[in-house]
């Protein structure tokens, strides 16, 4: 009887408990220049998002409200667009491995699901990080896959300065934007410099998408992002 009780008590004791709740708001400006397939000459977009999340041990939950406001130029005409999305997601993290599942509802109608697998490798001095990543996303247009690898160097100054250089290979399968296509769409190279203060993040990114199929235009883009921890 005593042994049985001991086993029940041991099973009830948590191995370790950690709980964190945080909030984050960010504003990003992105400008893209391309002239085929999407049929826009250029597009600027402002993204505002608020994130609230919590974590218990290795599991975390996050909710985001995302607002995209875009201004596009199409054959000299200005076009405006706005989208609001609500994203909920969960993630599992153990050591340097992370698995994320996210579901986003855009404009109350359009569903977007995403699965991400991330892995981080840190050099012995913590200054260099290599992170391969796989992202599979699905919405009514089809399935898209992103395989990327990023190398970054971080310097322990105030603010922390990180230079991140990711390269990603994108693929699309199925009926994507009303085009029947399955295969690799392009490669994106998007170096980014980020500055991290205690509560504020600032990132500047300049990227180029190399279209590997005539259906997909190559285009450069530049992005500026500011985030504040709530």
């Amino acid at each position, binding site marked *: 009887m005593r042994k049985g009780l001991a086993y029940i008590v041991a099973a009830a004791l948590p191995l370790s408990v950690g709980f964190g709740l945080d909030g*984050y708001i*960010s504003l990003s400006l992105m400008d893209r220049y391309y002239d085929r397939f999407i049929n826009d000459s250029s597009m600027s977009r402002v993204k505002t998002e608020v*994130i609230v999340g919590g974590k218990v041990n290795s599991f975390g939950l996050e909710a985001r409200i995302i607002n995209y406001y875009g201004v596009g130029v199409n054959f000299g005409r200005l076009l405006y667009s706005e989208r609001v999305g609500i994203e909920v997601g969960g993630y599992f993290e153990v050591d*340097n491995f*992370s698995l994320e599942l996210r579901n986003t509802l855009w404009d109350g109608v359009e569903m977007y699901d995403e699965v991400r697998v*991330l892995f*981080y490798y*840190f050099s*012995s*001095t*913590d*200054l260099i*990080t290599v*992170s391969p990543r796989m992202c599979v996303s699905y919405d009514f247009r089809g399935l898209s896959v992103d395989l990327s690898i990023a190398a*970054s160097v*971080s310097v*322990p100054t*105030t603010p*922390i300065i*990180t230079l*991140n250089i990711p390269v990603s290979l994108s693929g699309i399968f199925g009926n994507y934007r009303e085009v029947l296509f399955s295969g690799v769409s392009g490669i994106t190279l998007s170096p*980014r410099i*980020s500055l*991290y203060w205690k509560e504020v*993040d600032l*990132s500047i990114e300049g990227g180029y998408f190399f279209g590997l199929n005539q259906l997909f235009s190559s285009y450069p883009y530049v992005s500026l*992002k500011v*985030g504040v921890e709530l």
Partner: protein
Amino acid sequence: MRRFFASLFLLFTAVSLVFSEEFEGIAVGRFLSKDVDNTMKIFIKGSKMKMVPEKQISGTNGYPIVDFRARKGIFVFVDEKYYMEIPLDVMIKNVEEKPVLLSEGGDEKYLGFNAKKFVYSGKDFRIEALGTGELQIALNPFIGVQRIGNEGFLVSASAHYLYKSSIAPLKIVVYNPKGERLMSVEIVSIQKQKLSDREFEVPEGFRRFSEVVKERMKRGR
């Protein structure tokens, strides 16, 4: 007769234990170079060391903690509340691959210890060092000085030579061929005292630098 030899053996063991006890206490060291004049408090317990400078170094408020036997070390950033690993194994390898072979000079009294002088004369520099065998140290307290230029490497390598010879380095001075002092490190006071193991642990609430970066990068997606 048997009892006599047994007692002698026990006595010998006890004496050996007393004299082989590794140093535990706090030393105050002074670092001097062309641009820097700084003092530091050096906490030592066996093969563990924490070196806290009096003034910030290059604008960074922090200090290293090392475990020499385990060949592991970290640097604690006090204001930012994170720490990062330092390549202690590489630093030890550096000074062992390029040793400075000091020659023994005369005897000298220093801080109440019977110390020995050591010298090295090279084409571009001269080194004078003082060390004592009366302190049992299990580490090279100046291993990190190698990061500060060529003179720093010479100080570190000289200290390592003494440490490997079971001599505690007390003072190391590097001169140029003209006899001008380029760099010196010296212990100015030393006190044996019991120290808690907590003195050599990561402070409460501090995170690893890689975790901080990982978290911020995830947010930036």
